[in-house]
């Protein structure tokens, strides 16, 4: 029996007293690419952070390849490939190659950096990159993590094309939809969302299948 790569069951997330995500359930089958859309502030990133274990949900369960995960612990984060929404710059100089090496598979991350056109930046400090370069470097890191030993075949990315120009958006969309691994893609990029296998939409805290 093949388990879903990721299964989320009845996840409830709150911010203060406000319910941000209510009873969200969904599953990603192996190799399936799912876009998560919704208006600004609709709770997409909150849902994603709860799934990854970066924030503790009020209730709900998360399964990774059929294995239950401890809610609010970063176990999921450590087992998947992830690209955050807010890309950090660091307090001390941190070079791009150090960041790529932290993926767990430096060679794969470097290869992805080449595909994304940022391999020439490896010796540069992360803080000196433009927004678009930073996004490509973090995506290359995430793709390196996908190839790291012991990781689940799941890419979780939060607005991967937000800082890119039109050509860059199309290039990254090509790369993402061509992946063999499952992918959960939070995005406002409609062309990218349309190219995914399925689209989920979050509105007023409720998750639903989008057309």
């Amino acid at each position, binding site marked *: 029996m093949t388990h879903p790569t990721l299964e989320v069951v009845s996840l409830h997330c709150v911010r203060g007293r406000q319910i941000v995500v209510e009873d969200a359930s969904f599953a990603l089958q192996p190799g399936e690419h799912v876009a998560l859309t919704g208006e600004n502030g609709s709770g997409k990133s909150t849902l994603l952070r709860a799934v990854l274990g970066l924030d503790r949900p009020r209730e709900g369960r998360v399964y990774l390849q059929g294995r239950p995960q401890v809610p609010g612990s970063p176990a999921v984060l450590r087992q998947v490939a992830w690209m955050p929404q807010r890309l950090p710059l660091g307090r001390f100089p941190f070079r791009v190659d150090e960041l790529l090496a*932290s993926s767990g598979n430096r060679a794969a991350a470097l290869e992805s950096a080449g595909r994304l056109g940022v391999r020439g930046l490896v010796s540069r400090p992360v803080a000196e990159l433009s927004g678009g370069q930073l996004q490509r470097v973090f995506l290359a890191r995430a793709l390196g993590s996908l190839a790291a030993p012991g990781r689940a075949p799941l890419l979780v990315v939060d607005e991967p094309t937000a800082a890119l120009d039109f050509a860059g958006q199309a290039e990254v969309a090509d790369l993402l939809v061509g992946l063999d691994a499952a992918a959960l893609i939070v995005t406002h990029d409609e062309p990218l969302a349309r190219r995914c296998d399925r689209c989920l939409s979050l509105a007023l805290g409720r998750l639903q299948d989008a057309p």
Partner: protein
Amino acid sequence: MNSADLLDLLSLAPVQRGLAAILVSGVGMPIVGVFIVGLDILTARFALMHTALLGAAIALLAGINPLAGALTACAATGAALVPLSRRPSGTSGAMGFVMTVSIAVAFLLLAAAGLPASAAMELLWGSVLATRPADLVLLAALNAAVALAYLALRRPLALVFFDREVALASGVAVDRVLVVTLVLVALAIGAVMPVTGALLVDAVTLLPALAARNLGGSLGATVGLAVAFGLAGNLLGFGIALALDQPVGPVLVLTAGTITLGTFLLRRARGGPA
């Protein structure tokens, strides 16, 4: 003062211990400064100094060594900083609270026990030339521990300083790294206070780290430069203070401050950000 007088001074045991203390703290404390800047806990050092005072007050009441009390309080505060340092809002607000409450409780305890506040306040007014052999041993042990911790943890530390969530995603045991780092920071500050005085701790910790950050191209380079600036500033400041017969503390601060300013101007001259 001529060189013969200076050599005479250097032959005195308190001066030798002072020199040893600033050499030891010139190596380890700038690394502590790098930890403080990297973890963005600049306000925490004030709280640590005040909780040290509370620890000293409790120790005086209990009839034990005030420095032991101060170090215990520092270590506890360092460990308590771990969850606070994870919050997006940082440690500033909580540290302001801890700082003021600690000092108030310390004064109340001392008053209730009929002890002079000056007994605990001595910790805040250290003197390099009053360094005792036991202070020196403690300082050396903690500075060695800081240097070893850096060497052992430099890769995970670089990731934690870069971003804690990226560090978590890279498999770093962030909380463990934070506990080790923060407790060592707290203990090292507690140990250096009797030597430099609380008000001058920054000269041997933060200023070399800030100077190094102006020029370093990586965490490793920043730590190396911080140690170099720390040693240079301490030795130069100590030498100038002795040669000019001035108090060591303020001269150390001014020397370290001049180095820091110099690195800032150098960065500007290289076209770096202001």
